[in-house]
């Protein structure tokens, strides 16, 4: 069975327009999702869920949001951490202040408020481009940093300024164990990834890509820049907001504004660039890289040190991790500026020819 489209005839428009046009792709994706839902819970242990899989999934979701803005629409944004914070805090307020609020509705409403924030702070993109816009979005980052610390309403007037949730449940299913959390987040991620994939394949996605490639030409042929840019900000911040709410509710449990500071924004931008701009699959690769590398380094460095008989202190390991991460990022950007998704698409391209040489 070769990876080809030969012999797969489409007999109606619906099958022609589907996301995974090649039958092998469809089978592969369904197998992957089935493995994620059924196989992983059987194989993984609690540490894997808590420390690797849940952060990986949530960061990948946030990266999908950032990728829509930066990769598909070309607007550089350094404020993603702030939108995650808005999603988290507003979801928290909706969840706690309204009686019997269903969890999923609270999370989505967090996304809704993040969307509003995104639209407001996306207005400068109508006038400002490129690196100027990047720094202008930092205004959003610092403003929300300050807002959630100084305005007690957001933390329900908690004297310590900490927000915390517990007892999460959906339709009677208690989300308590790490495996439950993993499955809950996986559901969100699968739905949002498919929605995002469909969006960027459709007319609005094409508008975004036209704005990214050459916005003056796009407006000449009739694409409204305001509509395209603001919808990019809106959709992107909605997804980022939901990811932020998930990060706070499911991964952290109790959080403070520092969890969503500028380092988070940089981290998301790294994920998107290393994964590949303009690629939904790339977000997952990038998130995997960013989540796994520090853990690997943490285990590997002391081991290498012991191999050479050198005792490396934990502070040293921390510094060395920074150095190695920085070097890896630079090396990666030199080797493949299009990110890991490019390797993936090269692999698929080679797979189309296999086993023939050309």
């Amino acid at each position: 069975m070769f990876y080809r489209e030969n012999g797969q005839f489409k007999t109606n428009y619906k099958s022609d327009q589907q996301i995974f046009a090649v039958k092998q792709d469809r089978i592969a994706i369904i197998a992957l999702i089935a493995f994620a839902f059924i196989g992983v819970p059987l194989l993984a242990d609690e540490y894997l869920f808590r420390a690797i899989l849940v952060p990986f999934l949530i960061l990948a979701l946030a990266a999908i949001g950032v990728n829509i803005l930066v990769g598909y629409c070309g607007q550089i944004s350094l404020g993603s951490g702030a939108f995650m914070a808005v999603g988290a805090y507003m979801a928290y307020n909706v969840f706690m202040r309204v009686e019997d609020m269903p969890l999923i509705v609270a999370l989505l409403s967090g996304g809704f408020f993040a969307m509003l924030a995104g639209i407001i702070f996306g207005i400068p993109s109508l006038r400002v481009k490129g690196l100027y816009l990047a720094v202008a979005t930092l205004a959003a980052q610092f403003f929300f940093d300050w807002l959630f610390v100084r305005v007690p309403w957001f933390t329900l007037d908690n004297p310590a300024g900490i927000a915390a949730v517990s007892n999460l449940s959906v339709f009677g299913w208690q989300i308590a164990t790490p495996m439950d959390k993993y499955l809950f987040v996986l559901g969100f991620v699968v739905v949002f990834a498919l929605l995002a994939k469909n969006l960027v394949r459709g007319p609005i996605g094409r508008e975004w890509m036209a704005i990214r490639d050459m916005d003056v030409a796009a407006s000449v042929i009739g694409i409204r820049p305001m509509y395209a840019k603001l919808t990019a900000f809106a959709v992107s911040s909605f997804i980022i907001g939901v990811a932020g709410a998930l990060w706070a509710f499911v991964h952290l449990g109790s959080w403070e504004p520092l969890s969503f500071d500028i380092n988070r924004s940089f981290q998301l931008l790294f994920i998107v660039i290393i994964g590949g701009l303009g690629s939904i699959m790339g977000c997952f690769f990038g998130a995997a890289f960013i989540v796994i590398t520090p853990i690997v380094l943490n285990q590997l460095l002391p081991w290498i040190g012991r191999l050479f008989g050198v005792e490396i202190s934990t502070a040293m390991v921390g510094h060395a991790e920074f150095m190695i991460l920085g070097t890896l990022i630079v090396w990666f950007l030199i080797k493949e500026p299009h990110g890991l998704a490019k390797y993936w698409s090269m692999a698929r391209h080679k797979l189309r020819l296999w086993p023939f040489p050309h």
Partner: protein
Amino acid sequence: MGFFLETIIAGLMNGVLYSLVALGFVLIFKASGVFNFAQGAMVLFAALAMARFAEWLPEWLGFESLLLANVLAFAIAAFLMLIFAWAVERFVLRHLVNQEGVVLLMATLGITFFIDGFGQTIFGSDIYVIDLGLPDEPIFILEGLFPGGLLINQDDLVTALMAMAMVALLTLFFQKSGTGRALRAVADDHQAAQSVGIPLGRMWVIVWFMAGLTALVAGMIWGEKMGVQFALTFVALKALPVIILGGLTSVPGAIVAGLIIGVSEQLAEVYIGPMVGGGIQIWFAYVLAMVVLLFRPQGLFGEKIIDRV
């Protein structure tokens, strides 16, 4: 009225320091088209080098003079920044020629991580002291006009003068010397400069070295004020609104915008701050710059962005 003037003077002195850090950004952006997010880490690294060598040299070489220790430490730190500039050009910039702005920005972020870890590995991660021997009693001026006079910190005054001297030297270097002319040519148009025979790589090393020098002076001044610690990297984040307000490609813009941001930040913190809960100086500069950008998308002094379709 006296208090208002004091606030403005304090803001101006802060502003001069912001201008200094912003200058480093502008120099690199003009000459190599790279938005150097690593400037903050360079400030920290240079300040660490100077602080530690000022501590170690008297021990190793056995002399007592503070002035000599500081001067030697400054020279060594400057030399280290030269090596750093060479290394960045050789291992990073050379391989990323012609990439998009976002990729270069991310590369400088990678450099930031590397420098952070490297500096703390070599020099340690405690808080260190830079002692420049500046007088620190406040002085009172204009006692005739205002009762009690206006309070000015002497060390603030001296550091502001140092920063202004540095800026003046840099401007002179750019305008009058041959290398300065070559750097301006590179900033104008890479290809034209290359076709005239200007070695692009070497120019980039020089410009990163100069940015490293401004980082060293800025690090020395900030380090003296608040101690050499990890928080110094965030000084660079304060310089970002200065550059976008002034325009990414304009040296006078960086200076003027630095003063504007310094003054308005102080005024906002003192007069508007109490109404909204205080601590607004972290975002006020950014919002101010963003609002100005809405009216002048290229900053106050930046060159107009021309799109060719």
